[in-house]
């Protein structure tokens, strides 16, 4: 039986992790490689890096991080943030990323998704959707949540599936950072609309939220950052909890 995945996400800036983890036995709290290794050893099903490096001149630091991590972690590694072109995707894959997530560039020009999924295969193309509720619909935001494209998130999700995305990483901007749980309505609506797996993101504060994301949100995988970073829960505890609620996980 296919298991639901738990994906810890690390924010990386200029090659260093921000919002460091309070793990014991951690030599360097800012080293993404070391932290990714701790997660994968702890049973994380995948690792996600989000590059939040602001300036273009520091962009190369992410390639170095990916290269080092992929030599130590033997679970899938997804990298996103600042990915603009087929060439950017190519570089990340060559450094050892298994999947690349595309956000703003996909909204501005869906051809990036079409071209990259043709070139590298759908399996490595994740489209990240940042959505915010407006009345009774959700709109897609770009540039790290700064710009409203006005595009309907549900229609956009379908379009991205048709363009060749292998997975969708859906973040509720209303919930992100709030720790009150995923936007279940958004997740389940998108998941029901498309036939590719959905990764739920934004708002996790406790383990019940992960359960809801999978059971009610119909997500194939759940992504979380802070609950793992600050040592509130370990990936192992999260998996045990999910299992106790009847959700199939890899143990």
């Amino acid at each position, binding site marked *: *039986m*296919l*298991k*639901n*995945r738990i994906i810890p996400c690390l924010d990386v800036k200029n090659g260093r992790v921000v919002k460091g983890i309070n793990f014991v036995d951690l030599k360097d709290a800012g080293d993404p490689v070391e932290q990714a290794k701790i997660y*994968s050893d702890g049973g994380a*099903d995948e690792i996600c890096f989000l590059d939040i490096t602001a300036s273009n001149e520091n962009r190369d630091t992410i390639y170095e991080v990916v290269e080092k991590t*992929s*030599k130590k972690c*033997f*679970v*899938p590694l997804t990298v996103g943030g600042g990915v603009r072109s087929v060439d950017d995707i190519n570089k990340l*894959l*060559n*450094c*050892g*990323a*298994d999947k690349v997530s595309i956000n703003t560039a996909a909204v501005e020009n869906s051809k990036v998704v079409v071209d990259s999924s043709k*070139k*590298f*295969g*759908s*399996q*490595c193309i994740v489209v990240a959707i940042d959505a915010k509720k407006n009345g009774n619909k959700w709109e897609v935001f770009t540039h790290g949540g700064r710009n409203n494209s006005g595009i309907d998130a549900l229609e956009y999700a379908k379009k991205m599936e048709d363009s060749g995305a*292998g*997975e969708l990483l859906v973040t509720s901007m209303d919930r992100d950072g709030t720790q009150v749980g995923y936007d279940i309505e958004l997740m389940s609506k998108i998941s029901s609309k498309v*036939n*590719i*797996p959905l990764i739920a993101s934004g708002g996790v504060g406790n383990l019940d939220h992960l359960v809801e994301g999978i059971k009610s949100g119909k997500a*194939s*995988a759940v992504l979380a950052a802070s609950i793992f970073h600050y040592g509130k829960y370990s990936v192992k505890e999260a998996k045990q909890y999910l299992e106790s609620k009847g959700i199939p996980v*890899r143990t």
Partner: protein
Amino acid sequence: MNVTIVDYKSGNISSVINSFKEVAQNKVKIEVTSDVSKIKSTDKVVLPGQGSFKSCVDALQSIKGLVDCLNEFVINKKKPLLGICVGLQMFADVGYEESETKGLGWISGKVTKIDNQNGKYKLPHIGWNQINIVKGSKIFKDIKDKSHMYFVHSYEFVPTDKNSISATTDYSSKHVCAVEKENIFGTQFHPEKSDKTGLKIINNFINL
């Protein structure tokens, strides 16, 4: 001993390279090449594959002499080869992704889209799934039945001769996820991304 990973521009193979190097350390030489003369003289071959069946077959054929060299290596010399993902699928006679495309024909059968039961199952089949070991393949030495492996695919290999099946997995229906026919080995899942268990399979192949 030399293990050669065939680099025929079939998409991203860095994870395959990293995992084989991790397992081999300095004991076994891991070579990455599309050079036919090097592949000819090596001891073992790894055939990765990403993207569509057609794009992989086209990429193999675009390198002059490569398909003949692989045929010679596998069929005449009977040396060990491991196909991963589309690398395994290409063992078939024919694939139906994008368009009907002739495969290598090493293990008789076809590659067709997983039946998603009218949308009941999402495709691609992405994530960790358990394998049902149906026969003691050499690459499954010390691998427990029901071990979790990482999958990413929408198409499945349907062999004519069921004796070649070494493991299956359950998604929508029971489908083939590993084959073994004499010196030919293949996994639909990605051992290079399947954590310690996956590395053990790679180790088993290296130590054949």
